[in-house]
């Protein structure tokens, strides 16, 4: 009996082995019932839930791209999912197909370099997956492999894990397959566990399943790789970093190429382009707007995209960016650039897929969440309400909301075009204005700036990057000069006061009574944040050549006893709203900047101009009122001094000021010693007052922490 069982076991194994190694004839493979074929550049065969891909012989070794997204469901639309990215199929051993993803972090750009071979030997490219060839197509030009598991298991080519929904099981149901001119798109239905977020009193929530449609696209990439543009020559871009072995004869250098879309000029137009004519790119960048995106926002989204065309014109392209609408219920994964309205995103979010070697941007997704309105409209009201009556008259003004969306989206699209976030921040903001006449309503928000245009020209220009000749300058700061910045912030503060006055007195959009008060409180909180930002921005100009102006500004708007802090008279009058806490919080932020070691070192390195000694002197005046003897210091004054001393002492301890090894340490040491002497005197002069006790407290604390005798 035992022998019989063993015999059966070996026979089964042998049979399975034979069946696996054998390639079936195409007829044997295809003649099965219910097989559906989708012909295309990458043909797909489906039988029930099985999915087979035909890899044409001529595409072996060619690069493919796999992207994935949530198409719709669970209040999501066009939400990107982590996916395989760029890969290629190659012929493997024993008639198998290998899936490989190249590693490009170590490179030798000059392949003639004698070390190229050495590098290659230590950079053997991996095989990521092995596929059995099930059959070959009738023309013997393509290999058919089973990709069911890779696509549907959730562990292979796409990762369907979502933040707010729990995976209900490993498998997905194929919904549809669509072949396109450059690949094939799949749509799957997948169940997720979902617990309804709202709860009724006394009713238990039970986790159930909801279906979500996922999309996945395999796309053939161009045969020729995008030419590399080095980041050093084209500043202002997100980059792909790598180690370059060929440049430094003794070692390695770190280099990077910029991330950008492939924009090519048709061959026949190249000459004209050299002469300065603008050409339509062979393949423009088309941003698709999801058909479910509310109609009211579409013109603004379109504008945000098309506004960038001016920048591309500088690079020699016309109509480089285009906008189209997707069809209703389409499998939108097939679009390379998609903008969707997504109810489960808190604000704006975006993601792009880039080629790991060339930095070519291959796809991108922008999701507009509802939260985008909440804070931004409040900020707009406070920043621009003084010059744009529309938001004062109607807080829900759709045109204003559209402009806000357009401005934010312009920035996000810039990022999706490869531009660095910091550069965008720098260029996209503009000066505060005090009157709308100079620009007209609707023009106050940042859009594509001259600086952005020059960055685009540098990265996308057909001619060799103009940046190399030094023509492109990227402004990294918000304003041209610190003085300009201070002036702009002053306008901003003035605008803020105007809005506060108007809101407090006669206006509150659609609200009355208690609701109005609650709303005003909320706005007041945003106003405080804005004021804090303004002051921090000005404090940030320290060390940039306008120090005296900065200190004068801070005195006027923050430290002076009679500072006019933005507050709603109606709140202050009726419920005693106090602003000292907020003012103190602002002071702390500013003081942290003033006492920052980085600023101190910067000032010390200077040969002329404002010195560290002057900074400390100014702070003695602003914070400590020049150590004037005053027994009844207010709560604010005491807390301001306390905060300043705490920050300074923390810095001194962290910087080991007591070592007195560097100039900065010496300065800190003597600053604290000077303070201690002042405090000792003041404590002796006013022994019984709270102020005297304060000075005594800090005198002892400084002595103890600094080890002063």
């Amino acid at each position, binding site marked *: 009996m035992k022998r019989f069982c063993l015999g059966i076991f070996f026979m089964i194994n042998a049979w399975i082995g034979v069946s696996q190694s054998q390639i079936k004839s195409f007829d044997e493979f295809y003649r099965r019932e219910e097989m559906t074929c989708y012909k295309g550049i990458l043909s797909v065969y489906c039988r029930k839930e099985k999915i087979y891909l035909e890899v044409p012989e001529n595409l072996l070794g060619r690069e493919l791209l796999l992207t994935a997204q949530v198409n719709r*469901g*669970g209040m999501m639309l066009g939400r990107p999912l982590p996916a395989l990215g760029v890969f290629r199929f190659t012929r493997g051993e024993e008639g198998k197909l290998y899936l490989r993803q190249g590693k490009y972090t170590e490179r030798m750009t000059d392949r003639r370099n004698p070390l190229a071979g050495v590098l290659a030997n230590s950079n053997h490219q991996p095989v990521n997956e092995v596929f059995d060839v099930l059959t070959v197509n009738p023309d013997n030009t393509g290999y058919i492999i089973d990709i069911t598991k890779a696509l549907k298991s959730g562990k292979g080519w796409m990762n369907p894990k979502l933040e707010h929904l729990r995976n209900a099981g490993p498998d997905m149901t194929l919904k549809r397959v669509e072949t396109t001119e450059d690949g094939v798109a799949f749509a799957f239905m997948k169940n997720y566990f979902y617990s*309804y977020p709202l709860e009724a*009193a006394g009713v*238990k929530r039970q986790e159930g399943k*909801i279906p979500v449609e996922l999309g996945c696209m395999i796309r053939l990439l161009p045969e020729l790789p995008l030419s590399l543009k080095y980041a050093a020559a084209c500043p202002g871009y997100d980059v792909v970093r790598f180690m370059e072995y060929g440049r430094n004869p003794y070692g390695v250098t770190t280099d990077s190429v910029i991330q950008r879309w492939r924009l090519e000029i048709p061959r026949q137009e190249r000459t004209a382009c050299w002469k300065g004519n603008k050409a339509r790119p062979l393949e423009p960048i088309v941003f698709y707007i999801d058909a479910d995106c509310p109609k009211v926002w579409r013109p603004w989204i379109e504008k945000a995209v098309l506004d960038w065309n001016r920048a591309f014109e500088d690079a020699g392209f016309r109509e480089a960016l285009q906008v189209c609408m997707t069809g209703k219920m389409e499998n939108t994964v097939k679009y390379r650039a998609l903008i969707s309205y997504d109810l489960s995103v808190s604000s704006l979010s975006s993601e792009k897929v880039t080629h790991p070697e060339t930095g070519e941007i291959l796809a991108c997704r922008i999701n507009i969440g509802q939260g985008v309105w909440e804070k931004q409209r409040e900020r707009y009201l406070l920043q621009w309400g003084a010059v744009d009556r529309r938001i004062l008259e109607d807080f829900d003004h759709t045109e204003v909301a559209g402009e806000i969306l357009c401005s934010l989206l312009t920035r996000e699209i810039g990022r999706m075009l490869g531009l660095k976030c910091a550069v965008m921040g720098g260029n996209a903001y503009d000066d505060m204005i005090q009157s709308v006449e100079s620009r007209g309503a609707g023009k106050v928000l940042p859009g594509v700036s001259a600086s952005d245009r020059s960055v685009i020209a540098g990265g996308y220009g057909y001619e060799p990057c103009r940046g190399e000749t030094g023509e492109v300058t990227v402004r990294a700061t918000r304003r041209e000069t610190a003085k300009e910045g201070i002036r702009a912030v002053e306008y901003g503060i003035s605008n803020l006061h105007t809005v506060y006055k108007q809101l407090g007195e006669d206006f509150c959009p659609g609200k009355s009574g208690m609701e109005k008060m609650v709303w005003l409180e909320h706005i007041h909180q945003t106003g405080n944040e804005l004021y804090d930002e303004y002051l921090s921005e000005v404090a940030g100009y320290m060390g940039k050549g306008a120090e005296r102006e900065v200190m004068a500004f801070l005195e006027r708007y923050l430290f002076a006893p009679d500072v006019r802090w933005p507050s709603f008279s109606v709140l202050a009058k009726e*419920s005693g709203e106090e602003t000292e806490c907020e003012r103190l919080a602002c002071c702390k932020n500013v003081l942290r900047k003033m006492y920052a070691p980085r600023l101190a070192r910067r000032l010390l390195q200077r040969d002329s101009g404002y010195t560290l000694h002057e900074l400390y002197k100014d702070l003695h005046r602003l914070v400590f009122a020049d150590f004037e003897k005053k027994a009844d210091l207010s709560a604010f004054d005491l807390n301001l001094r306390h905060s300043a001393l705490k920050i300074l002492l923390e810095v001194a301890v962290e910087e080991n000021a007591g070592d007195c090894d560097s100039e900065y340490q010496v300065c800190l040491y003597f600053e604290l010693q000077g303070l201690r002497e002042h405090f000792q005197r003041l404590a002796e002069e006013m022994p019984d007052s*709270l102020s005297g006790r304060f000075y005594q407290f800090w005198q002892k604390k400084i002595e103890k922490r600094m080890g002063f005798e």
Partner: protein
Amino acid sequence: MKNFYVVSVLVVSFLVCAGKGKAEERGEGVSVKEFFLSADSVKCHPGLLNVFESGGHYYWQIADSLCGRDFLVATTLLKGAAREKRYPDQRYGYAGDRLDVQLFRMVRRDGKLYLIQPFIQDVVADTLNELACIARQTGEGCVLAELGIEAEDADGVLVEVTELLEDNESFFGLKNFEMELGIGTYLPESSCLKAIRVSPRSMTFRFVRSYMSVNYIPDPAVKSEPTRWEYGVSVCLLPEKPMRRRRQDVRVGYFSNRFREYGHALFQPESVAFISRWRLEPSEKDREAYARGELVEPEKPIVYYIDRHTPAWLASYVKKAVEAWQPAFEQVGFKNAIRACPEPEPEDEPGFSPDDALVSYISYKVSPFGNAYGPSSVDPRSGEILCSHIGIFNGISELVQGLYFCQAGAVDSLACRIVLPDTLLGKLIQYVVCHEVGHALGLKHNFRGSSVYSVEQLRDGDFVRQNGYGASIMDYMRFNYAAQPEDGVAPDDLIPRVGAYDRWAIAWGYRYFPEMTEHEETEYLRKWTDEKERNLLYRYNGTNNTDVLSQSEDLGNNQMRTNALGIENMRRLMELEAWNADDEVSRLVMGYRYQVMLRNFYGFMEQALMNIRGMTEQMNVHAGNRKTMVPVPKWRQQEALAFLERYVCTPPGWLFRPELFRRYKIDQRLNVESLLMQFVAGLSERLRLAPSAEYPQEELLSDIRHCIFREWENGEPVSKDRKILQRFYIERLKQIADSEHEDCRIALWALGELDELAELAERYAGFSVGKEYPRSVITGIENWKRKGQ
């Protein structure tokens, strides 16, 4: 052999496919009769759905008219499991417990029947709004179960539900209640479906199931053990047209259900809340009479059944507790709107069962837990309360008798009996049940309700008889301890009752406005609330315990004055002979009462402490009736300090009697030293709060100094207890001076106060009463200063 294997596989595959094909075909064209044709036995339970039993399999036949309709599922324990250890505060696990309700909808789609949990509170239907369109893509609800259609005829489709009924994770299992019941692994081998009862309005499945116990509070001494439960799962159909919703106003304390309205949303869905309330509407024939202002009976009154296991002497008080709300409903125009009746005996009404989803029930449980609860289950579409199961633990008797003795014993001599007469205990429990019924009617706690009357009013027998002594029974308002023996307040007026706020809140939630649109109704109610909330009687403050007037278990608008009277009553009680009684029952009862006295005293102290640097809510009519928190006036803070000086800083030896601690084996954490420690800890917390301009910190510190160190100022000897108090205080001041505060002056003031105390100690050392103690204090402060700075 290979061929043999291949052939075998093919044959098996063919058979499987053929079988499957047959099964798939069954739903189409197979009638229910045909489906059961070959079955040995089929039992049908006709009713809401036809439920079939056949060969260990269960089927539901669902009429087309029920597809798309919403069902309520209620799980009720009929027999709780015996446990090796039951925690004293365990709330669930007893017979009669209604574990939460759930909701499902039957949807027929793609040849299958789905049970889904509908997304009712996302209002997205009937609109072309684009946000709603996106929200709609989430679907109608999450799928809880997917059932294949087995057969179909004119009476509906037949689906097999055996797996659904057996699955512990479906709503027929107890998986959802693991935490509440302390259970884990399901033991199917010792579990079964015991009975099925189907009626035209509901169907109930009774299960007996076993689970291993799980101890959710880690305790190595308690091992996991098998537990056995009997419970019923009742499914009933919800009305097709939900009750009209009533929008929440945060100024009236109702439980609520939140909705997201996508219908007109451009920026974000509007979030709105609707209150939970019973559907009380006049019948069609009474509508006109109702409109004329006549009292009418509601079409569907609220009926509670009282657990037949409730002690006979108590049942009538439970009934009174329920019906005490009737006058409130009469104000709204409904008579007999709420009533309670005894649970019918099985022989009288065999169809009755407490596990029926729509039955409201008051169960009585034996447990040391001194509590009761009153949840309600609502239709989330409308906030309609569909049923409610109130639970009374017998441990509540001990709690209320102890509190009544402590707070009212000096006025009502009956309270001093070791065994209270049923007539009195019944009334005390009646008040607790009445509070729980309030919750079951949708009302939330209102801790503002006990602080509306002055001491004079609380002591005025006529006033209290007419008005009660608080505005709301939904407060944790205990007994009228302000009343003194000489005041002539009747014993019945020492117990809380439904108050003015409760009656108004019921009117606000239940008045029927058929002639108004929903918007008009909301506006009308808003204006009504605007008007009412000007009067303190109708003010709602939830459980906002930052307001000194919304403290738990306090009484009157000045806690110092009422608490002083409460303490006088307690002092009288401490003179009773009963403290010396030696029999076992007296020892047990008086021991518990003594503990209540001590805790009550601690409570009085805490309430007074809250006044120091306390805040209270003030309504500002000029700012849109906005309520803001303002500091408690200085005179009141000083009054609190005076109270604390009199009753705490001078330790009350009459209460903290060591012989009673020994006699009743009282926890030492309640002794006088702990009292002082807790007082100083509380005081130091108050000192960390921002001072008001009216009562500067230096002045407060100086007032405290006069309280705690008066012997030092007067050159008198300090008692042992007072030395403890003084040392605790000095240590706390050091802690304040050492720590970082939002306002740096807090530490400086503490520092200054320590200097003051050192100076005072120096002076005190000059007196002849003893030098060592003040010297040790000075050395302590100096050492701390040297070390700390």
